[in-house]
């Protein structure tokens, strides 16, 4: 008879590539959403938002000034920036090392919320507005990539090695 598996109550360690990859993705997302937020509050008609040729399907301005740019009254660019900053903290090497299981849960929940929002925004852009915002798409791709990294990182995590005996004494 095989004994029942004991739930692991200690720290889970993801593959080594996960913290670094997720941190880089989050940093890029912060930069991208930060730019969108900056243009939102300074000049929504910023040149960078209107690089698209007239009639182009890819047209940031058509999206960032649309009725879908303020879900629940919050500028979507600002919401994206807040999300990206929070995820940067949760996905930093510190976040992945945290023993508190709620950090891991928050990271997982954040990635699911992020990808859900991406799906909603994609629907708004492709179906309702029929225009794609290049900078928003950048954040969408990063969000999706982060979702994959976090899911795999969480699934492939292994219990940390117990601290060698006598470590405290040596320290």
């Amino acid at each position, binding site marked *: 008879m095989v004994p029942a*598996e004991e739930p*692991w109550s200690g720290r889970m360690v993801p593959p080594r590539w996960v913290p670094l990859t997720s941190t880089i993705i989050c940093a890029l997302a912060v930069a991208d959403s930060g730019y969108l937020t900056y243009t939102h509050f300074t000049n*929504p*008609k910023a040149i960078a938002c*209107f690089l698209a*040729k*007239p*009639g*182009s*399907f890819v*047209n940031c*301005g*058509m999206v960032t*000034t*649309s*009725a879908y*740019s*303020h879900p629940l009254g919050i500028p979507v660019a600002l919401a994206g920036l807040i999300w990206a900053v929070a995820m940067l903290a949760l996905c930093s090497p510190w976040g992945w090392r945290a023993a508190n299981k709620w950090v891991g849960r928050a990271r997982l929940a954040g990635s*699911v919320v992020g*990808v859900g929002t*991406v*799906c909603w925004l*994609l*629907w708004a852009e*492709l*179906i*309702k*507005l*029929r*225009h794609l915002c290049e900078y928003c798409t950048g954040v969408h791709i990063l969000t*999706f990539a982060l*979702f*994959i990294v976090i*899911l*795999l990182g*969480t*699934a*492939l995590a*292994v*219990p940390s090695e117990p601290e060698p005996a006598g470590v405290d004494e040596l320290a």
Partner: protein
Amino acid sequence: MQQRRQRNLYTALGGIGVAVVVVVVIVAVSLSSGGTKKTANASGDIAPGAFALTAAQIAQVENVPVSELVKQAAPMPSDAAPPQALPAKNPVLTSGGRPEIVFVGAEYCPYCAAERWALVTALSKFGTFLDLRGTTSSATDVNPSTPTFSFYGSGYTSKYISFIADEEETNTEAALQAPTAQEEALVTKWDVPPYIPAADAGSGSPIPFIYIAGKYLLTGNQYDASPISGMSWTTAATYMTSGKNATSKAMQAAAGYLVGDICALTHGQPASVCSLVPKPLIGVTTTSAASHGSSVTPSTTAPAKAPTTTVKPAKKAKS
């Protein structure tokens, strides 16, 4: 532990798979509905005879301050007419929860040419135009070659209002855009007496026809733009935005009336625009203008020396 890890991996791959499927479905629906294809709205298509405008040229018109518009509109009567009031019981026309403004015109029409200056000036206070082009009215109609914007292939986004435009014909009167069933229904119902002069009834549907969310209506141009007939687009833009000649003042007053009516529809939103509009201009109509001393009446909405053009019935039937 290994078993649990494998189970977690399957769950993760399942989650990723679900997300991928959702994205693929959205893209597929978009492609199948033509969502990513060019459409009449913001397609960037350009009508024969139309030409590209630079961002600076468009900004010159869009950047006339609200304070200037209301300054020209406030001393009623002005040389421009406010929209007519539609019956109070008429429902508000909305799209996506926002009041919707419907423009039906044609590029050959010199009165539509006049009206587009005011419309672009006013609507740019509430949202963003994209792919606006320049064009001129017919070279052989009255006020020949009046420079103006073309709404064909353009787009407009706003948090506050929706705007759709239909340019039925080119400036050489070739068919351009077929009206939608909704536009046809609105024109049939409202582009008739008493909203148009009785004398015009029976000779087609006057344009420009601008249905402002079921509450206000324009069945002609608000002011006379004949002085810009034959001007280059750039010269006309400078002339119209200067505020230093009667035509410019009339255009800005016309835009001011539109801004006031749109503020009534948006309940004062955005405050950055509507807080600058004096109360008498909020929801202003020919009737309320008259009560403020205007002599403007619906039958003289179009300047007397500039009778409203009409869409030829035969071409309408074809479209």
